[in-house]
């Protein structure tokens, strides 16, 4: 790998509601990469994403982003730095219109100046949002809401986007659409960490992957190499 990693998570322990959820996790994201985190339900994938985004803070270890320590920062600080989490199920604001949801995405000061430009970009990637511009978010379908959540995240002008279960419960057509956008996002130079139940899909899109089991990283590496691992084959490809 060339140069410094964009994100460096070093040996973190994380507790969730008094119970330890992550043990000694180390993870890096290098510029230009899509990194996938895979594992069974309850393995700690979402906890790891939430910790990177500042929602939860590690009890031990450190998180560095662009060379600076961010271990104790809050989510709104992380957004200002360019780290944006698109949470599970999108969590768009139901009683706001599509346009208002996108508008609030550009709340941080860095993004405000680029609001019009980013809005054009979002409408370019997700033309459906422009059609639905004046609709309340609660009147959208699940897939449309997820698209809105992605668009809202893009409005924050991120350098690193974290997706928690991007495709969960959505139809294949919508999933394809979302992954098309994901590739476009990457082409724009935005880094991505992907947490997915859909292992085949996320391994197809990612450069590297970390496999979590019960709060530990059990395997990590380039996707092409991981595919060859017997354990991965058995667990995720049914071979």
């Amino acid at each position, binding site marked *: 790998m060339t140069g410094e990693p964009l994100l460096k998570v070093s040996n973190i322990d994380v507790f969730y509601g008094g119970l330890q959820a992550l043990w000694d996790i180390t993870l890096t994201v290098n510029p230009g990469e899509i990194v996938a985190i895979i594992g069974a339900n309850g393995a700690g994938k979402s906890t790891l994403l939430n910790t990177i985004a500042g*929602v939860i803070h590690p009890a031990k270890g450190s998180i560095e982003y662009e060379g600076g320590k961010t271990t104790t920062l809050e*989510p709104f600080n992380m957004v200002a730095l360019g780290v944006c*989490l698109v*949470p599970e199920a999108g*969590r768009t604001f139901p009683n*706001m219109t599509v346009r208002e949801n996108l508008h*609030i995405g550009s709340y941080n000061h860095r*993004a*405000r100046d680029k609001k019009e430009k980013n809005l054009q970009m979002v409408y370019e990637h997700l033309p459906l949002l422009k059609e639905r511009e004046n609709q309340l978010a609660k009147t959208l379908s699940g897939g449309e809401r997820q698209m809105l959540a992605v668009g809202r995240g893009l409005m*924050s002008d991120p350098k690193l986007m974290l997706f928690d279960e991007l495709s969960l419960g959505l139809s294949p057509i919508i999933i394809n659409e979302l992954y098309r956008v994901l590739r476009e996002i990457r082409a724009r130079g935005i880094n991505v960490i992907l947490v997915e139940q859909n292992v085949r899909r996320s391994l197809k899109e990612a450069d590297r992957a970390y496999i979590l089991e019960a709060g530990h990283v059990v395997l990590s590496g380039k996707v092409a190499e991981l595919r060859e691992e017997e354990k991965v084959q058995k667990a995720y490809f049914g071979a």
Partner: protein
Amino acid sequence: MNFLLDLSTPITLGILLGGLYALIALGLSLVFGVMKLINLAHGDLMLLSTYLAFTFMNVWKLDPILSLVIGIPVLFVFGFVIQKYLLNRAFKISMEAPLIITFGVSIILENLYQILWSPQARGISTSYSIRSFGIGELHIPVIYLLDFVAALIIMFALREFMRRTYLGQAINAASQDRGAAQLMGINANRVYAFAFAIAMVLAAIAGVFLGLTFPFTPQSGVSFLIIAFGVVVLGGLGSIAGTFIGGLVMGLAQTLGGYFFGASAQMFVAYLIVFVVLGVRPQGIFGR
């Protein structure tokens, strides 16, 4: 025909009074809508502005409405500080802790007013607030009309603020999903402090018009709170249009109740309607 003509007075007065009631309730509704907190000190905080207006007129011989030049910034800062240093911390303990704090603030203020302004009943009467004008058979106190116009202007301004500014949208977002708002770069605690401060600006304005309309004592905060609470229950929490309608229903119930059942039944009729609405439609007439 005569009957209808007789009714035109309570209906007109009820609508105008309803505007004032909506104004009283706006701040309470905003705080509840955003933080899910019933601010038990809302009436007493409003009363601070009322006493300030009273002092302005009696001590400095200035128009009571001018007192808002001081009342608005004082209550804004006061609201910000209460939310930031007391309520935001209390929220970490439990949902009840901030409620009890607002109750404490209410008691402290009530006693403070007794010390500063004595327990005596006061009123603010200016040349315009005691006058009335006639339209045919109707006699309308000028101050009622002033209350109503002020309420309309404030509600419109609040709506525009909530829709058009980043802060307004952030308050709206944090009220719908605090966690998601933080993930969009919004510092929820800071936005809460601003929301409370803005609610106090609304209280400051309402307080002056209340003082111009009704007599008051240091204990009046509670009765103003109860009116505001009734309005908010009727209209549904957190929406400006709902608060306005709630205010109108409350005002009309009071004046029509007085017309049909006598002055002593006024508030009884108003709260009977609140009671029925709570039973049939607990989310309020316009609640979501």
